[in-house]
């Protein structure tokens, strides 16, 4: 199976999140991902794009380029933006299930959900400015292999 790519360019507007989710859902359905995997990657991309719009561009407007590549073993979503450079993936607070909610800060859940719902999440500062996030989901046999290795 060769690598197949699809892309979408949107403005950094929170109103575009629904469009972004539909795009990811459609591509994921076409390659036959399970409903659980589709929900996971859709959520991860939504969270990442919301971060780009709110924390990256802020009050400014810019583009987000979304490229999805699928091969035999993985689905890779690349998010490119021209916002100021920052690694949003580092902002993950440690969460203890038993900590009362009133003692928790509300932030950081989005990044946690990105990491929990992808097999790999990587940040790169682009050489010419802007940011790149690479979100990867393993498919089929390799996902089972990796997940079983995680358990062991």
């Amino acid at each position: 199976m060769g690598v197949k790519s699809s892309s979408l360019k949107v403005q950094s507007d929170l109103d575009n999140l629904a469009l972004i989710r539909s795009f990811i859902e459609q591509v994921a359905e076409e390659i036959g991902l399970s409903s659980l995997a589709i929900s996971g990657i859709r959520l991860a991309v939504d969270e990442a794009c919301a971060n780009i719009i709110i924390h990256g561009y802020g009050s400014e407007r810019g583009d987000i380029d979304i490229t999805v590549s699928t091969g035999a073993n993985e689905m890779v979503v690349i998010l490119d933006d021209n916002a100021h450079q920052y690694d949003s993936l580092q902002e993950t607070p440690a969460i203890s299930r038993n900590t009362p909610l009133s003692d928790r800060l509300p932030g950081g859940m989005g990044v946690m959900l990105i990491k929990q719902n992808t097999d790999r999440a990587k940040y790169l500062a682009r050489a010419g400015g802007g940011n790149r996030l690479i979100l990867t989901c393993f498919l089929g046999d390799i996902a089972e292999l990796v997940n079983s290795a995680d358990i062991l």
Partner: protein
Amino acid sequence: MGELNIRVSQMEGKLPVSVLHVSGDIDASSHQDLDNKAIEIIEAGAQHVILDLTDVSYMSSAGFRSMHKIHVALQASASETACLKLLKPSEEIRRLMKTIGFDVHISIYDDLTRAVDAF
């Protein structure tokens, strides 16, 4: 901004209960609607709140931040019985509740009458 439809109903169990019936996707573009309506009813005196998620098919962390905000606002009230309960979240939302550890602190019900009686 994305829009949520939110209707408020009042129920009487052992205690008076306010139910927020939400429909739509709760994401970063729409959660403010839920925040505003919840704070409005809490400031008006609501202490026992059910968030009806029957018609919510998608929720991102923005929705969980709203839930956190409502929970904390109710906990801050003088009433010891004040709290938030959830009604009929989707399987996906239940999965995320576990991931972020909210399931330990916010009770989930599949039946409105049972949720009302649980206060």
